């Protein structure tokens, strides 16, 4: 089990309204890796992450994540992966605390875990009782990260986790990623901040036009 790849895509194709956002991706990610996904705008990085999370169907080729075949069943893998997308997935009219509590309840995290996550992302204290709609862009992103951290997923899929965060936040999220990896999780990060992400990652994969480009 532990030698099988966590993510195993072979010639996977994913489409949006007939447009092949992934045009035959072949890629393996092993346990404990931190993989940096890079590539130009529109290359298909976000689509790849969403496909790994079972949100976007893989219509051709084969795709396995954590041992589940995504072509047959996209649902059972979901509770084991955590996805941070471009959108935050927060409820604008609820406070930070209410949002994090909601996600904690839904995924079955404890109050202590919740508190720890909020403290790490510095959205505790005064901020906790402000509504999401009253936060700055970076504060919202922090809140989304706190909701992700309480999940303790086996596979982390992060779409530009650094975007919008300040220097301290960036360091913190790097630390969180490293801790998760050393605790046995696997991480795939899509990012345009290549310098920072390269330091973090154990390996880099380039996507171009919906395909993996050979690393030269």
């Amino acid at each position, binding site marked *: 089990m532990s030698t099988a790849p966590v993510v195993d895509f072979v010639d996977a194709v994913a489409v949006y309204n007939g447009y092949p956002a992934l045009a035959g991706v072949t890629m393996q990610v092993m346990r404990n890796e931190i993989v940096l996904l890079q590539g130009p705008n529109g290359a298909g990085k976000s689509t790849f992450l969403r496909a790994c999370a079972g*949100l976007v169907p893989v219509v051709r080729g084969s795709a396995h994540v954590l041992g589940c075949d995504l072509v047959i069943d996209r649902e059972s893998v*979901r*509770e084991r992966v*955590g996805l941070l997308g471009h959108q935050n997935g927060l*409820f604008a009219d609820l406070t930070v605390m*209410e949002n994090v509590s*909601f996600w904690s309840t*839904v995924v079955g995290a404890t109050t202590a875990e919740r508190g720890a996550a909020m403290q790490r992302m510095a959205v505790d204290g005064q901020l906790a009782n402000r509504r999401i709609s009253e936060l700055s862009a970076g504060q919202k992103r922090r809140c989304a990260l706190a909701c992700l951290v309480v999940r303790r997923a086996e596979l982390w899929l992060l779409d530009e986790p650094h975007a919008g965060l300040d220097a301290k936040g960036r360091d913190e999220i790097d630390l969180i990623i490293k801790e998760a990896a050393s605790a046995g999780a696997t991480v795939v990060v899509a990012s345009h901040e290549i310098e920072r992400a390269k330091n973090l990652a154990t390996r880099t994969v380039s996507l171009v036009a919906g395909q993996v480009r050979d690393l030269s």
Partner: protein
Amino acid sequence: MSMSVSRVARAVAAKDLRIELRTRVVTNQVLPFSGLVMIMFAFALDSDDVLQRVAGGLVWLATLFSMFILVQRTFAVETYDGALDSLRVAGVQPQGIFLGKSLALFIELLVLEVVLFISAVVLYRVSVGGLGAVLLVTCVLCATAGLAFVGTLYGGLTAGARGRETLLPLLLLPVVAPVLICATRATESAFESGGVTVGEGWAWVAVLATFACVFGLGGLLSFGSLIEE
């Protein structure tokens, strides 16, 4: 598994109701809207006995309008910042989401209906007896449960992707219109308007209950695949 379904359902319902309390869509938007319908009718048909005869129908018509707004609203909250995606990817049981959202919608609709019935009693001077009240309450509960289930079901289906939400009225209309008719007839019996007796109403309530069961069950079984892309 079933424990976690009920936990999710409670969390989702609590969240929806809290958002509602905070943004007050029902109070600020839906109630005046329904109030307008009621008053306009009173205005348009200023003859007392026509009004009393149609009072039940008006209340249900107003409920229906409000339901469209509420369903749209309750799923707009989920899709605005991708929360529905997050729920799906969190591996949350779709049954939990379905039950939770239905419950919240049920409560919101119920509050609305109570207000509407009270205003019908005041505006249109209808009266209801003891047995009639029992019938009325059962009818309201069954009809509202049915509306909440079917609203959540189709709301989830149309919430998936951009542009789809315009399908909602087309899908909902033919399904809820029978509810409207049955509920209206039951309400007329409860009000004993137009010479109908209270006893006749129970057949309609049975239809309403069946409807609620069918859509409750259908939703539980199929909600997961409906909210997928």
